[in-house]
């Protein structure tokens, strides 16, 4: 050890190890291995299967953990099911006390959990101590509050049931908190699987659940690898699956749960842009980058991994960045002065290495500082890749390591274009001292979280979650709770939707049309309605619609995949609809209502002729449709966002944004009312829609485009493609340029839609073949529709001069 007088000359930092003897003693006491936490007891796997868990910084074995199989998942789900009844029946105030106790107990053991997390995961103790664990505590506090308020703040909602939760290894205990706290607050019970690399803090948390006196079975923790996770997602006793992890596995889970009726939230990968404008505080932006990509060794789903920097300041920015990298300290995660610890596992380290190598091969310049990196253990130096083209693999693929790729832009438009040039849309960071530049950019980015002049800020009161292939659903805040709640009526609607058999035969019908007063009625041609124009179906085919009494009523176009393609393109072009003020959209919707009411008789006859001849019911349906249009017209400028209460001197804006292009398949019940009930909220929120009406009642929809035409609805906002709903739904589900898809049809169709939606991971809302009582104001309208028609973008704006 150097002497004081020598250090006086070198002025080095010395070692500053965090003590870990308490954790070592805790692990030693479990040297026979950890069991699963099921029904409030720790139990080994029935078949005795187990695996080892290592400290990535040293390679030392930390513990042996049980590998959960079918028997364990069955037992855990059963225990959660048993606990669900009494737990969900508790007053929110009582559940709040348990969550409060968890928050307090965690807080009293902050250092223990920090040290354990760092040993298991390899992240620096500074991060687990100052970021992970305090956020965990905050999450339980915050959700203790939601438990207290759940009945008053979420009337007409109920818990979903038993939640299967699968979490990643990068923020083990924090991701557990993000899953468990809202689930419990809303009255659900959980079966959670921690990542196989990092299960230890979850198991310590299980002990805490016992300490808090949480009723047995409310929280069940089953350890294991991907196979165990698959057993959870496939288990019929699970009502909801929440997953955080890779987009690849997210897709598998979407497929596996398709058609099961399980509620699903996915928080997946990202390639988040970090945009530095020429008027940014560059030194602060450099620190932002350190917090963006060299936080947790870059193993962060929302890591700012793509630096987009204005050409005018790129050289200075790179120089400052390189100078800063020379002062980063990589090494022992338990050392209090370590900036970057170990990569979680050799598999991950190999992936980082190979992607960096590929980047080099594709022509990028790779720069690493001359700082010391330990030779033993799984370490990778902070890395800057410049000369990267947007087309390069490393510019598109998530590396999930401490590697920053840098690209330049010339104008704000180009910055936005480059930023959005990604399959992902999780987060973004914008650096500019101009409020105009920053907020304009924030509004245009396709990302669930946008940090202005900051990065990687989290808070339990703010929603977190992605756009596009970064997943759907939010965690945190009011928006996050909806993932663990269901409308109170939802499961009561068990009756299957009426299925009306439709003959899509394209040959001439056997029936002759009705003759009025001895003169044949003029033949009417219903077309598709695309881009504000009446269009013949691409295939040139039509099918015949029949009245309930069997009489042929007329023909509708038999749309095909190309018609869907054209409709999606038209919708994609009608972007101005999303940009206008809610007031303008309200005016248009009121106008639609006005014009529909004026044509009440016509629609009454049409509906009655196609449904059951009951004119009174049809007339009431038209009236209800007019009221529904007015309801959403009224909402167009009122379903606004929130300013979350996160940190002091921060405005955290939760903005409800439209998806952009949505698709809607309408059910066979209430042909006009269902059509209006689905289309109106979607367009009120600024979406442009591609609608497939009920095939048996398509002429109601084609009549409706005449209403649209006379009501100032801009072309492309509503596109109607008639035809075989089931085959068109497949094309829609497969289409990667549709962001959300509401399908109301058959059970098989629902499953097919969910299965096929994995291409771009579009958000789906399906009815699983169940009927909806559209006339019922509880079921047929309301905020649930508006919530489903939007996604929440959280924009963090710190302020102060």
């Amino acid at each position, binding site marked *: *050890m*150097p*002497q*004081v*007088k*020598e*250090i*006086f000359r070198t*002025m*080095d*930092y*010395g*070692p*500053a190890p965090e003590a870990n003897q308490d954790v070592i003693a805790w692990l030693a006491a479990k040297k026979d291995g950890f069991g699963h936490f099921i029904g409030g007891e720790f139990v080994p796997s029935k078949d005795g299967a187990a695996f080892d868990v290592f400290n990535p910084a040293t390679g030392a074995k930390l513990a042996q953990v049980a590998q959960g199989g079918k028997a364990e998942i069955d037992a855990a789900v059963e225990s959660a099911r048993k606990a669900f009844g009494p737990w969900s029946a508790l007053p929110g105030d009582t559940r709040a006390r348990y969550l409060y106790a968890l928050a307090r107990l965690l807080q009293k053991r902050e250092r223990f959990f920090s040290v354990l997390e760092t040993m298991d995961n390899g992240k620096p103790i*500074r991060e687990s101590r*100052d970021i992970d664990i305090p956020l965990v505590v905050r999450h339980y506090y915050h959700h203790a509050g939601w438990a207290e308020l759940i009945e008053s703040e979420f009337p007409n909602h109920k818990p979903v049931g038993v939640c299967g939760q699968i979490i990643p290894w990068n923020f083990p205990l924090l991701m557990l908190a993000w899953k468990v706290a809202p689930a419990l607050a809303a009255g659900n019970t959980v079966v959670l699987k921690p990542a196989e690399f990092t299960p230890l803090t979850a198991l310590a948390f299980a002990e805490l659940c016992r300490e808090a006196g949480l009723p047995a079975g409310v929280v069940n923790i089953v350890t294991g690898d991907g196979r165990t996770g698959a057993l959870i997602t496939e288990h019929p006793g699970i009502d909801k699956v929440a997953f955080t992890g890779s987009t690849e596995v997210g897709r598998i889970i979407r497929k596996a749960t398709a058609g099961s009726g399980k509620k699903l939230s996915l928080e997946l990968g990202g390639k988040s842009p970090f945009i530095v404008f020429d*008027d*940014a*505080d*560059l*030194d*602060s*932006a450099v*620190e*932002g980058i350190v*917090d963006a990509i060299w936080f947790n060794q870059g193993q962060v789903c929302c890591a700012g991994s793509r630096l987009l920097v204005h050409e005018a300041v790129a050289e200075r920015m790179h*120089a*400052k960045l*390189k*100078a800063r990298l020379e*002062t980063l300290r990589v090494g022992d995660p338990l050392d*209090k*002065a370590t*900036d970057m610890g170990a990569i979680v596992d050799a598999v991950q380290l190999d992936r980082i290495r190979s992607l960096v190598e590929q980047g080099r091969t594709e022509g990028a310049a790779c720069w690493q500082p001359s700082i010391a990196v330990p030779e033993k253990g799984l370490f990778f130096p902070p890395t800057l890749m410049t000369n990267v083209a947007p087309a390069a693999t490393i510019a598109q693929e998530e590396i999930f390591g401490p590697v920053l790729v840098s690209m330049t832009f010339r104008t704000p438009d180009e910055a936005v274009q480059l930023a959005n040039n990604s399959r992902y849309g999780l987060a973004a960071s914008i650096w500019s*001292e101009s409020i105009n530049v920053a907020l304009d950019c924030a509004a245009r980015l396709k990302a669930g979280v946008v940090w202005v*002049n*900051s990065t990687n800020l989290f808070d339990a009161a703010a929603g977190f979650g992605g756009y596009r292939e970064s997943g759907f659903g939010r965690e945190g805040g009011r928006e996050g709770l909806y993932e663990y709640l269901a409308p109170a009526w939802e499961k009561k609607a068990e009756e299957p939707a009426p299925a009306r058999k439709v003959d899509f035969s394209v040959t001439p019908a056997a029936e002759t049309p009705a003759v009025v007063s001895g003169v044949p009625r003029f033949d009417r041609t219903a077309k598709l309605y695309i881009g504000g124009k009446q269009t013949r179906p691409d295939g040139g085919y039509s099918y015949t619609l029949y009245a309930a009494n069997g009489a042929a009523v007329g023909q509708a176009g038999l749309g095909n995949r190309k018609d869907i393609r054209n409709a999606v393109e038209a919708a994609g072009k009608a972007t101005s609809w999303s940009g206008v003020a809610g007031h303008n959209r309200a005016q248009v919707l009121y106008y639609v209502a006005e014009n529909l009411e004026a044509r009440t008789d016509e629609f009454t006859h049409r509906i009655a002729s196609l449904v059951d001849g009951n004119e009174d019911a049809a007339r009431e349906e038209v009236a209800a449709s007019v009221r529904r249009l007015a309801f959403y017209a009224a909402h167009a400028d009122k379903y606004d966002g929130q300013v979350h209460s996160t940190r002091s*001197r*921060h405005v955290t804006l939760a903005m409800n944004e439209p998806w952009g292009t949505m698709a809607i398949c309408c059910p066979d019940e209430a042909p006009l009312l269902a059509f209006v009930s689905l289309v109106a909220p979607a367009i009120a929120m600024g979406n442009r829609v591609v609608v497939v009406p009920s095939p048996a009642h398509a002429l109601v929809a084609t009549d409706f485009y005449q209403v649209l035409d006379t009501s100032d609805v801009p072309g492309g906002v509503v596109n109607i493609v008639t035809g075989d709903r089931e085959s068109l739904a497949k094309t829609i589900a497969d289409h990667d340029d549709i962001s959300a898809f509401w399908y109301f049809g058959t059970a098989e169709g629902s499953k097919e839609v969910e299965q096929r939606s994995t291409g771009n991971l579009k958000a789906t809302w399906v009815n699983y073949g169940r009927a909806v009582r559209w006339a019922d104001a509880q079921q047929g309208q309301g905020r649930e529709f508006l919530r489903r028609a939007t996604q929440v973008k959280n924009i963090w704006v*710190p*302020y*102060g*001069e």
Partner: protein
Amino acid sequence: MAEQVVKIRAASTAEPVAEPAPASAHGAELARNAGTPLKPEWFDNARVNLSAVDRRAATLMTRRTVKKEWQAAWLLKAITLIDLTTLAGDDTEERVARLCAKARHPLRDDLVEALGLDFELKVGAVCVYPTMVPTAVRSLKGSGIPVASVATGFPTGLMPLRLRLEEIRYAVEEGADEIDIVITRAHVLEQNWQALYDEIAQMREACGKAHLKAILATGDLKTLRNVYKASMVAMQAGADFIKTSTGKEDVNATLPVGLVMVRAIRDYRELAGFDVGFKPAGGIRTAKDALAWLTLMKEELGNEWLQPDLFRLGASGVLGDISRQLEHFVTGRYSSADRHAVA
């Protein structure tokens, strides 16, 4: 970036320098900041984001720490960086003489011995009012400890420029090695950079061989952009040091303000090729405060700024706490203030 700096420096040394650089108190040769013409383009577009600066400042000390031997060495280093200061209305010659004695002998002998030091431990300078300079010079004779004097109508500077310059010349004539001047805050608040530049340039001229430390009184400037701009103008006008506060403003040296000033020093180094020193002053009371400032310098500017020719801590009370912490390191027991000599 390192290459670029070297290049600029080579170019700048070719230019005529205002005067030959004196050897610094600790022997290392350092090119004295010759200043530049007023160049508003270096700071007009300065951007400083308060929240981001606050975040960096707040995490500096959570990212870095020194323990045991390292902490002891760093605390000893801090002692050598202190401008031991008395600037009170009740200062007397005796009081100043006592302070000077403490400056020569900042730490108890037994602790010095236990710490195994092989050099004479002394503070960076003694800082007094102009009328106390003769006493300080006399008391510090032979110690090698420079005498610093405040001047220019300290602490507000609201005195005719002619008198302020005269005050500098008086202090220098009496033997002050360093002059801590205060700027006219109005020039910053009115963004009259030319007036600020001219004032400091004249003060620098009046200093002659004595080094000039420009006190920006950041507590009065309020915004961090003002702090950055004033820092840049002071350096362009030839300040050898930029200093945060007089100790008399409502808000004294804070880490965010320090961060902005050292970033300005870094930018100036890149642009002009000169190293300028930094002195936080006011509010530095504990050993922990001192370590935070040292960490800031090391992280943002490097080890060169951990030497007294480029870094000073303006403080009067911190020595007591440092002494207690060093005794704790030596003995393992928590110490009492009474066990260490006051000034």
